């Protein structure tokens, strides 16, 4: 029996489609930019929120990143998905926010207490297990160093490939591999210890 690769990322198809879209936008069809905004605003917002922890600041960063990306669309590398690129733009802003905050002693970068508790379950249409799973995920992610956490988020929340993660954080693929390997190991052990996933290794 041969396991089928699951969760395949249509990376190249999407990149091709987006490259064509970007070409049209740069050529003057600026109104088409809203397609990209629609596609990625929520995902980028959550990524930034996970980085900076503050909804208002995350909103600002995402807005600015989209405006910035639009202005620099000519620099976009069409061999990547648009998200990889705009993430990187937003990420730089997030890091600056964090740096300012940290120097002012407001927060440390990998403070697990920044991860807020989920609101109590009040909707019957959502399985309780998912809520527990979400809370366990939040807690376990809080134990990771910031760089591993970011790589893990990009991999599992945003579904990026190793190559895309490397481009998104401006690091070599080898760095991505080691960060992901360490993060995965810890997360599997942590989630397993909370009883929400199966055994960490076969």
């Amino acid at each position, binding site marked *: 029996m041969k396991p089928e690769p699951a969760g395949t990322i249509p990376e190249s198809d999407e990149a091709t489609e987006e490259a064509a879209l970007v070409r049209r936008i740069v050529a003057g069809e600026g109104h088409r930019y809203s397609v990209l905004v629609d596609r990625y605003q929520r995902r980028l917002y959550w990524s930034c929120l996970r980085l900076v922890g503050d909804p208002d600041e995350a909103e600002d960063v995402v807005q600015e990143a989209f405006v910035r990306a639009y202005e620099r669309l000519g620099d976009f590398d069409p061999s990547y998905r648009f998200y990889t690129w705009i993430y990187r*733009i937003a990420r730089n802003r997030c890091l600056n926010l964090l740096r300012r905050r940290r120097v002012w002693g407001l927060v440390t970068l990998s403070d697990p207490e920044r991860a807020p508790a989920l609101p109590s379950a009040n909707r019957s249409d959502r399985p309780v297990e998912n809520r527990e799973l979400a809370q366990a995920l939040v807690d376990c992610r809080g134990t990771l160093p910031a760089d591993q956490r970011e790589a893990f988020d990009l991999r599992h929340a945003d579904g990026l490939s190793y190559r895309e993660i490397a481009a998104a954080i401006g690091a070599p693929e080898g760095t991505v591999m080691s960060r992901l390997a360490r993060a995965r190991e810890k997360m599997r052990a942590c989630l397993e210890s909370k009883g929400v996933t199966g055994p960490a290794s076969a």
Partner: protein
Amino acid sequence: MDDHAYDHVGELLDRYRTGELDEADRLRVEGHLEACPGCRRELEALAAFARAVERGYAAESAARAAELEPDWARFRASIVARTSARASGARRARLGRYVPQAALAILALLALGVLWEQGVRSPEEADRALRTERAVGGRSDPLEDRRGGPAATPGADGKERGGGDDRFADRARAPETQEPTEGVPPESPDRANERRRGVAVEDAGFRGDVDGADRAGAEMPAEAEENRGQAAAPAVGAEKRDEALDHLDLDRPEAQAREEVGKAAAVAPPDLERFQRNARNALTEADTLLAARTLAQWRDSLAPRRDLPPELERAARALADSLAVFLASRP
């Protein structure tokens, strides 16, 4: 699977799982999986883990969407409004012309920012601080003690307090009453430096790679570094500044942003933070025209209430100068 091979195998399996491997590696992994039951179980465990994590992320954002997410239609509309009037990918040609205004806007927002961060939060808070001071110190007006200090600026101060709106000045000064150092707000030079660095690096990050938050601080451009700590001459004379502001074309597409800044300025101080953020954003975008307008708004609505210690003025000037150098160095 031995420990030595774990990382590599784990990575291969993880990439195999998502179909990222090239043909040769994929065939290799498949060949290996055929012969290795433990590896197949590992792949299944890995896939189950990834699915669970994915579900966890989705559940997290779903559970907190109502609390944390903006109205996406409005969010999108705001971005579209800010981009539709401009050509995409176009470099700004105007940059050099408005550098002095940008520098002044930085000065303005620095001033506001410092006042804000000194503890100027709300009227209630300021009043409470004053009441506490009175109760503890038994002084009728703690601000009286500050006014004659060597570092105070008597001219501006007198004017401020003679005017109808001295509450802002009171609130700006209230936190100082708890600080023994005469006329020097706590930490302000450091904050000024940090602020300057923050703004400069924010843009520099797009030119250089920022790998990890810890190393990102090293990306500060050399020109900003060189200007650290220097108290240089003002970036532009007031006369020149006013002339430039008078010639601004106020009917350009940034009207929306300007309006927002205007609104924030009109209801300041409670919205100072937002106002400051707008100004900072404008500068971050190197949108110097907007920055200049932000300055104009600030000048009209807030400047008469300003009361800055000389140390801050100097820090602000140094900041303004390094920003001007930084902006001028951009293409």
